[in-house]
């Protein structure tokens, strides 16, 4: 048994989940520090999940001022204008999250995520980025990977009824029980850059179409100088044109990415709350798994599409 014991209060509050992952895992959770950036519906769900689970601290980063659009799928923001006017999303979410579990230290941090130095990220065990540009994700991922300690890195992107989670644990050792034996396993994760810029040709055809579609949208937003998530149906012709170019460049058929899927993605700037709950739930589960060291983590993409209801894991690290 490592570290001190759980308090009576913790044992009572966390009783049902200790029965799932054990007291040791609960202790590790309570000592972990999580950084969360870009709080829309899915990330709000994620925050709720880890605060309830009892992580040590959650640091929120989102300097957007609260507008009516912000509480669309975000139940952490109460639609009380007197309360939110002039405040940032992180500030308001911080107040709500504190109520969920007084034992978790929830605080905010201000500034542009991409400008923080390596030292900043070293304070955390987990970094979760939602609602950010490809460049920012890439920059933060590099900083995390350059640290001697492992900082588990996640990005999450939800568009309409679809969503993507990316996971980078650098190298991750865990044990799993196989019958009566305990087997040591090790996984090697590619970086964000490697994972999103892999050539398409060698990737198996049965890979989730969302992987390719998300890359098209990502690139579209980058080249057009858009904020993340900022596209609409009127962008569709240009998105389709970009898709064509990308498919040709990668020498794969255009059928690789259905136009209908891209259409749903570009018009999906309002979040679909059930998809947020599902993807935020999966992400929460993954982070808990990795902090507690229990079970096999997802590697290295997860996709959900409410249209077909499938939640798929895609491991794109071997095909690079």
């Amino acid at each position, binding site marked *: 048994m490592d570290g001190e014991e759980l308090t009576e209060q913790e044992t009572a509050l966390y009783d049902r989940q*200790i*029965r799932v992952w054990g007291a040791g895992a609960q202790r590790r959770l309570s000592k972990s520090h999580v950084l969360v950036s870009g709080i829309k519906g899915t990330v709000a769900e994620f925050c709720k999940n880890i605060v309830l*689970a009892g992580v040590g601290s959650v640091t929120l980063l989102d300097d957007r001022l609260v507008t009516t659009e912000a509480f669309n799928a975000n139940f952490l923001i109460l639609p009380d204008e007197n309360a939110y006017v002039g405040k940032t999303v992180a500030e308001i979410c911080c107040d709500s999250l504190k109520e969920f579990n007084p034992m978790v230290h929830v605080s905010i941090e201000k500034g542009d995520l991409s400008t923080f130095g390596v030292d900043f990220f070293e304070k955390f065990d987990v970094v979760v980025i939602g609602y950010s540009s490809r460049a920012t994700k890439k920059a933060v991922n590099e900083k995390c990977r350059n640290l001697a300690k492992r900082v588990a890195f996640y990005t999450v992107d939800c568009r309409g009824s679809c969503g993507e989670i990316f996971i980078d644990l650098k190298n991750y050792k865990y044990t799993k029980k196989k019958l009566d034996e305990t087997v040591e396993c090790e996984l090697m994760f590619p970086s964000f850059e490697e994972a999103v810029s892999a050539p398409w040709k060698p990737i198996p055809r049965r890979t989730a179409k969302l992987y390719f579609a998300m890359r098209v949208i990502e690139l579209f937003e980058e080249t057009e100088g858009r904020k993340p998530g900022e596209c609409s149906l009127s962008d569709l012709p240009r998105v389709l044109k970009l898709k064509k170019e990308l498919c040709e460049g990668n020498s794969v058929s255009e059928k690789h990415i259905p136009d209908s899927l891209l259409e749903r993605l570009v018009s999906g700037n309002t979040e679909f709350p*059930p998809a947020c*709950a599902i993807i935020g739930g999966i992400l929460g589960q993954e982070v808990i798994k990795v902090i507690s060291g229990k079970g*096999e983590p997802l590697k290295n993409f997860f996709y959900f599409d409410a249209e*077909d*209801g*499938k939640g798929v894991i*895609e491991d794109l690290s071997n095909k690079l």
Partner: protein
Amino acid sequence: MATQQQQSAIKGAKVLMVGAGGIGCELLKTLALSGFEDIHIIDMDTIEVSNLNRQFLFRRSHVGQSKAKVARDAVLRFRPHINIRSYHANVKNPEFDVDFFKQFDVVLNGLDNLDARRHVNRLCLAADVPLVESGTTGFLGQVTVHIKGKTECYECQTKPAPKTYPVCTITSTPTKFVHCIVWAKDLLFAKLFGDKNQDNDLNVRSNNSASSSKETEDVFERSEDEDIEHSNIEAALSNEETWKNRRRPRPIYSKDVLPESLTQQNGSTHNCSVTDGDSMVSVMPSLGLKNPQELWGLTQNSLVFIEALMLFFAKRKKEIGHLTFDKDDQLAVEFVTAAANIRAESFGIPLHSLFEAKGIAGNIVHAVATTNAIIAGLIVIEAIKVLKKDVDKFRMTYCLEHPSKKLLLMPIEPYEPNPACYVCSKTPLVLEINTRKSKLRDLVDRIVKAKLGMNLPLIMHGNSLLYEVGDDLDDIMVANYNANLEKYLSELPSPILNGSILTVEDLQQELSCKINVKHRFYSEILNPVSNSVWFLIILPSTFPKLFHFIKSRNQDELSSDIILGFSNGLIDLSILYLFCFCHREEFDEEKEPEGMVLSGWTQSPATNGESASTSNNENPVDVTESSSGSETASKKRKLSEPEPSNHNKETENVESEDDDIMEVENPMMVSKKKIRVE
């Protein structure tokens, strides 16, 4: 995404949520965020501290308040303009009748027990309202859609029975800790503190009608107040025949495990300041035990056992005689933990902490917020499809812990209704029963209520009404029905014999079914417990109060099958025995099931979920699936996609000890056809 069409379907919908717990909180939030504006919610529970790790709409200050009401208030804070109506009530109450259900466009279940699930299923069928059903345990979960005539109903498929254990395993040959828990909880605790008139699931009755000729001479047969000396037990233990094929328990002597001071002074003095009847009475503080996760040694367990027994006697005397085990009753948990551990020690089984023992004894559901959030999201997705009448898109979805073919969330096309389902297809049932040896009460309790899940049953034979319940019955009718209950089926005013056809109805559920009776010629009803022997030996000289308490308690109820022995105090040795064994050699419960067989439908366990019982060890009713031709046709399951491998324990899993519990609480996992309740 929310298309126009979708939004209008959502806005105009009136939905009923049953359950405001783990799934319910998440569901209410997601419904409100998704644009639902008219939500009714029923939950009979109040908030507890152990809910707060996942039922995020509740705060510590809400403990003790209605879940439905607090959930409503919390969601109205972020969606103030929608209509949420809360009912702090049991969904089985008569006010929630078919007409009540008819006002809704869809019903969403977030329940924790099979009984209520079956009840809601029937009301939805009767009211012809679509039902989205759900369940979670740990990282596993599932969502299913049930629409009358289009998809299978909740009861079309076999539900896995709660994990049960043969009686002999519990009484004489325990090999796992859970066996010791069941023994401590359902035998020891129930016998000492419970209602003596209440049969428990272990069916430990002394008045069993027929005893088998197979039984061997019981060396411990003796009158109830005859003293047993320790030497008899040692003699029994030295009987090589008895222990040839089983592990011989090691007797535990109190002198070896208890401090001398204690055995001299009748237990430690109790200076607890707690009031009588307080369920928070605990012996742990006075024994210096703080951490419920700590493993106690034999001495500590023995101390807890003795102290807990004494404390029940000292502080909660009034409750004795009508106590039932409750996982939130600290003293009861301490008693059961200690007793189970002492027994485990005796049988060479690893001991467990109070925390673990409580989980096993209380069938505590393993629950985390994330699974509930995911399942709630899936429920809303299905609910929207139901409202849009997207029949082809309905899916049942499994949330898995380990991916199966890359899938973590696995959608499957819903199955068609099972034509052999007695709930949604009105298929007659066949009941094999000994009509000369079974009373109407057996039929009502064990079949109609326990098996068919009826709440307010009515039984008719031809034109003759044999039994009904209700508020509007006059005294004469009630007396009549009560008299009928005690009659053998063949001796009723309208005798039930081979070939009789019964009509069984529940007016609230609007469910009616026919039962074809076949007389069964098994004359010997075997009760293996009848010749099990159970020892609790306590020296009156060392524990006089305890001695008198136990003696007073058990005199009239413990006859030949349970012998409570007391040393006469002349013996030097203080003995605390906690073990029991039975003498029947190789009793075969498979071949000779007791009493009744109900067939023609897929069996369901009596309880599950948080209220699950691991103790239906000897359910006297044996259930098999119909062998009629309709069965094969009924399984028209579209297996276009693979069955989820929820039970793929071979890959990786939790501690094996917990597997039993996992299965119990996995209410909806589809399992194979023929399951026996033992």
